[in-house]
């Protein structure tokens, strides 16, 4: 038992030393077992050697310990199960060149686990070029081990590795990969990291941490020939790393990477150079945490933000201030079922009926314009409707104005006098209406409504026509009438009903 302990201590020391030596260590043992100092099954030869070391150790203990320590305290006896540890590992197929590469594994054994030992080499080197690195146990999850392959080792095109683990009794090794069939890791440039394809094994190894959360107010416009500053707030419990703005000219295929710099707290920024703002751009923001989790993105390669490059005349329009997702203002613009164009048909008194085109620039605002008919004649009209909610029954405020052209009022007024008939047969008038209403249905598709309010009607009667009427009723030939234009106005109650249907 003491012998095995000594082997473990020696192997651990070797592992740490070997890791520090990195890949230039030409003295790396050719045999993984030997290089890692893995505990071997007890043998007579090794027992002797072990006895020597044990006696030295015992003598040192004697110098500093109580006499009772001269006789080693009995250790808890765990029966040797004769089995190597159960080792599971999620293969790592890709990494970032020049960045630490985290490799994790899970190993358990009733006798306790020695290692695991990660052996890594540059792809293409010989079997003796593996660098052993001891994996560190997790302080949180028993059985989890991980190690960061130093950045100095990842500045190559590809790595190969395998993992071995023993139990304390020396059983093993259990392997993930092997010296002859190592696991290949492709190391790409930082911005071209592909999502690590996971080869599922019996146990899912959760990566440490999580990608940072990105809050970014998308820019929509910028000035041609001017630099564009792109800001984002990156918040991650496990740090932020590799924050970049990926951008390209609209129509290009490849993105260019623009590292973002920390400007204090969680705020990061990057500036697209003025030389690049020659035509419309597309971009997105991405970042990893320090363990490589991610990327977290605002925008995406296939759905980037469109940044329209304007001529210098108009000022750049800043994007709205970033807001938390839950506090975002509700607009139809952000809704998938947004509809902005529709048709309205209504009828009422005294306004008559109409067919109008509806346009909704804002979810709470509708504009309408179209034709009107009220049996006297045709006209045109337009207006706005405020619908401050999107409920099944929505209150509305409607303001309309319009003009009826050359209507024949004599359809409704019985007049025998030909001069009066002549005047009223070509009545034109302007109107303005204010109505409160209730709309039933969907503001996005179809709604039926009832409205009531007041209407203001204004018209001008020709002075010549009125003069003719006065002359016709003149009771004295010595009289002469001259009448100017008369203004006719009225404010009257009105009501209407109709429906709106939005089609686009």
């Amino acid at each position, binding site marked *: 038992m003491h012998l095995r302990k000594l082997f473990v201590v020696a192997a651990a020391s070797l592992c740490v030393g070997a890791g520090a030596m990195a890949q230039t260590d030409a003295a790396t043992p050719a045999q993984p077992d030997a290089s890692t100092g893995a505990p071997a099954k007890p043998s007579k030869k090794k027992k002797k050697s072990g006895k020597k070391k044990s006696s030295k150790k015992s003598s040192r203990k004697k110098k500093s310990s109580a006499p009772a320590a001269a006789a080693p305290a009995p250790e808890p006896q765990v029966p040797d199960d004769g089995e190597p540890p159960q080792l599971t590992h999620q293969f790592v197929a890709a990494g970032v060149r020049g960045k630490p590469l985290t490799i994790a594994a899970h190993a358990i054994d009733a006798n306790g686990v020695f290692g695991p030992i990660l052996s890594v080499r540059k792809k293409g080197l010989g079997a003796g070029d593996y660098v052993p690195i001891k994996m560190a146990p997790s302080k949180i999850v028993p059985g989890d081990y991980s190690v960061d392959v130093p950045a100095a080792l990842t500045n190559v095109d590809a790595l190969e590795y395998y993992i071995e683990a023993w139990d304390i009794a020396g059983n093993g090794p259990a392997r993930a990969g092997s010296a002859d069939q190592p696991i290949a890791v492709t190391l790409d440039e930082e911005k071209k990291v592909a999502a690590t394809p996971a080869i599922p094994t019996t146990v899912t190894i959760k990566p440490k941490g999580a990608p940072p959360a990105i809050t970014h107010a998308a820019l929509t416009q910028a000035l041609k020939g001017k630099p564009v500053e792109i800001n984002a707030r990156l918040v991650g419990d496990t740090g932020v790393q590799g924050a970049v703005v990926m951008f390209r000219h609209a129509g290009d295929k490849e993105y260019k990477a623009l590292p973002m710099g920390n400007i204090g707290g969680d705020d990061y920024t990057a500036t697209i150079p003025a030389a690049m703002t020659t035509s419309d751009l597309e971009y997105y923001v991405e970042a990893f945490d320090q363990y490589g989790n991610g990327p977290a993105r605002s925008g995406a390669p296939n759905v980037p933000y469109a940044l329209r490059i304007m001529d210098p005349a108009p000022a750049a329009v800043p994007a709205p201030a970033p807001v938390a997702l839950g506090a975002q203002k509700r607009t139809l613009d952000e809704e998938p079922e947004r509809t902005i164009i529709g048709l309205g048909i209504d009828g009422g008194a005294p306004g008559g009926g109409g067919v109008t085109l509806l346009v909704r620039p804002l979810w709470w605002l509708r504009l309408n314009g179209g034709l009107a008919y009220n049996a006297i004649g045709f006209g045109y009209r337009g207006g706005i409707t405020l619908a401050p909610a999107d409920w099944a029954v929505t209150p509305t405020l409607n303001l309309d104005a319009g003009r009826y052209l050359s209507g024949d009022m004599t359809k409704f007024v019985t007049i025998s006098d030909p001069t009066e008939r002549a005047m009223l047969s070509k009545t034109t008038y302007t109107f303005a209406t204010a109505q409160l209403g209730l709309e039933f249905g969907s503001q996005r598709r179809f709604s039926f409504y009832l409205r009531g309010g007041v209407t203001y009607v204004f018209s001008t009667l020709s002075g010549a026509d009125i003069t003719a009427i006065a002359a016709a*009723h*003149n009771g004295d030939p010595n009289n002469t009438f*001259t009448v100017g234009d*008369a203004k006719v106005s009225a404010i*009257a109650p009105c009501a209407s009903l109709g429906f709106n249907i939005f089609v686009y």
Partner: protein
Amino acid sequence: MRNLKIIALLLLPLLGCFAQIEDQSVALSHNLCGGATNCMPGALPLGLIQISGQNTFTVNFGDQPLLQPSSSLGPATLNTSLILNGAGVRLQSSASGDFKNVATISLLAAPAATTDCSASGSNCTLLADYDRNRDGTADQSIALRGHDVDLISYISTTSHSVQLQFQATGTGPGNTWNADVSMDMALKARANFP
């Protein structure tokens, strides 16, 4: 009680509702002598100006629409006003002379054809007047300043006419004369709801 409240609520939109017609320029011109003849003697000191021997002259508006003090218009009542903004007297011919020696002249509404408005208790209403010192010397025409009197109440609802009288001081035109009397009025007819 509840029903009354509902009815009142339903009628609420009617508050302030109205219909009206407004004409700020209704001019009526009337020839005093009823033709081209000069019916007034010249160079006479002016007092009550008699026309064809009558103290008053009659202006018949005719049976004009709206020229009723009030009339029903569906559920509403149509109220009409005809405000006299001003009046004028214009010589028909310059051969008659001029009005330079007219000191004052007043246009009055008289209750009867025989009324002399200069008499006390005549119950005449001053419609418009001219004062040479105030308005300047007249020549071929005299402009009388209106007193915003509503003529509607003076127009007979049966004959549609009004009796008018001129009271003047000074001296009239040197020769026989005739003149056109014009009245500039503002018509407003309004029906309020309910």
